[in-house]
């Protein structure tokens, strides 16, 4: 029983040792230069708008909306390229999905979801 899992045990011990020694080494041996540029907020290369301590919630909103509509559009590409083969029924079956995407898009637009401020 133990014999079967011996290799796994050795692997676990080695992994633990490597992980611990690496974090210990970087803690003890690594150079330290606090302050300076390191304290600036990194906003994808854009100069920060204000000295913020947290990311503005707007970034999360943009990221989330991008994710949602990106995935929605991704589902539409295969449909669009094979529409000729799918025929009439394939066309009608995708319409409810498109309606859902369109309604949510319109909702977001009207509620000001795409405005930065």
């Amino acid at each position, binding site marked *: 029983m133990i014999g079967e899992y011996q290799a796994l045990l050795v692997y676990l011990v080695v992994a633990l040792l490597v992980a611990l020694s690496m974090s210990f080494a970087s803690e003890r041996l690594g150079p330290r230069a606090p302050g300076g540029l390191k304290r600036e907020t990194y906003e994808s290369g854009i100069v920060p708008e204000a000295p913020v301590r947290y990311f503005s919630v707007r970034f999360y909103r943009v990221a989330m909306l991008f994710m949602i509509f990106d995935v929605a559009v991704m589902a539409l590409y295969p449909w669009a390229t094979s529409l000729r083969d799918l025929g009439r029924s394939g066309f009608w079956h995708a319409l409810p999905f498109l309606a859902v995407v369109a309604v*949510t898009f319109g909702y977001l637009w009207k509620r000001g979801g795409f405005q930065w401020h």
Partner: protein
Amino acid sequence: MVYLLPKILVAGGALMSLLATLGLPRWRNGAFWVALVLLLAAGVDAAVLWQAEGNLSLLVAGSMIADPFSSLVDLLVVAAGVSSLLLSWNGDRYGPEFPALVAVAVLGMMMVAEAGNLIWLFLGVEVLSLPLYVLAASERTALGGEAGLKYLLLGAFSSGILLFGMALLYGATGTTLFVRYPNLPLGTGFGLYGVGFLLVLVGLGFKVAMVPFHMWVPDVYEGSPTPVTNLMAFGTKVGAAAAILRLVAYGFYPQAQWWSPLIGYLAVLTMIVGNLLALPQRDLKRLLAYSGIGHAGFLLVGIAAHNFLGSMAAVFYLVPYGLAAIGAFALIRLVEGNGEGVQLDDLEGLAYAHPWAAALFIVVMLSLAGIPLTAGFIGKFYLLQAALVANQTGLAVGLVVGTLVGLAAYLRPLQRMFARSRSERVQAFRWSWAGGAVLVVAACGTLFLGVYPSPMMHIVDQSANFFWLR
């Protein structure tokens, strides 16, 4: 397609209600009315389907199970959604998207109950949870934010466990269609398959508020706006209990010898811990949260009993519990007015200021406690019978002890209500038509079911008639 109509109506309700929030400013309650009408239409359609469906039919290769059970669950969750909408009447403070989010949550609850495929089950759990995370925080109070965040984090955690269990199940069986599991040569023992099932059970246990996984319930129920708490207490519990029942009934019945005692122990623990912790609460919503935990235990008794009576009793018990919970939350909504939350002391003198509201509240609280002539008694009676027929005496004893402890907890608000206070804590509230209607319907339904349960028993008898028990 015909079978999908209730779901399509609810989904359409969500979308149209979302559109209506953008509409004319003069038509302020447009979103509310659109969602309400479409939810009611879905309920009517589910009732029609319940009569039409003689027996079970599998759709999409068994991913969706269309049977009277799923139609009955559809009806129950629509009732939860409609009551939540009515309780939110004149609730501008919950935000314009409130009706749309309620409709989406109801759609998720419907999906969970009809799932025959793990993927469909997971999708349903997520569709039901995501709107509730938002709804829990829809009021911008400190408690509301805490409730939303806590629910989001613990909900995501439980979803992860659920997904992990599903992955193990898929690894062990090679299919996500759990309706096929009994046909596979898996044996009746415990294995990778068993571990997967346990993790799925934990994930669903979070949603149904089973005891080791119940920590989030009181804080989330207390912090959420009352209509949302109503939806969580009734709708989520119905959906998750239906999912567990469906899972053990269709996927795991050959292995009943090990999961039945396990769920039994958890049920006893849930009943006793939930009702014990309900005793010292000072906030009515927290008290109802712990009572909800205790009632999750009662539901699990029926599942653990693992016989026809048990599944029937569990499904039946959803109705009295739901009616009583709706009634209690309707009273909270009436008393709290524009404030948030009701302390037990706030009820002082209610019986003299508003005798009718007090009388209806007494009916639903006694039903929660399980006093004869109310629906709660009938439900507990059938559960006890199921436990005894299954020869699980421990379950029966746990049920009785849990009920006894619960009785003490439910009588405390009633006692405060009759207290003569010098300071007149209870404020004269105005009856809103919607909240009043919910309270009256819940209390009358409770009394009706308690006196004349046979029609409902017949419906449940037709619905919970799973083939594995014959």
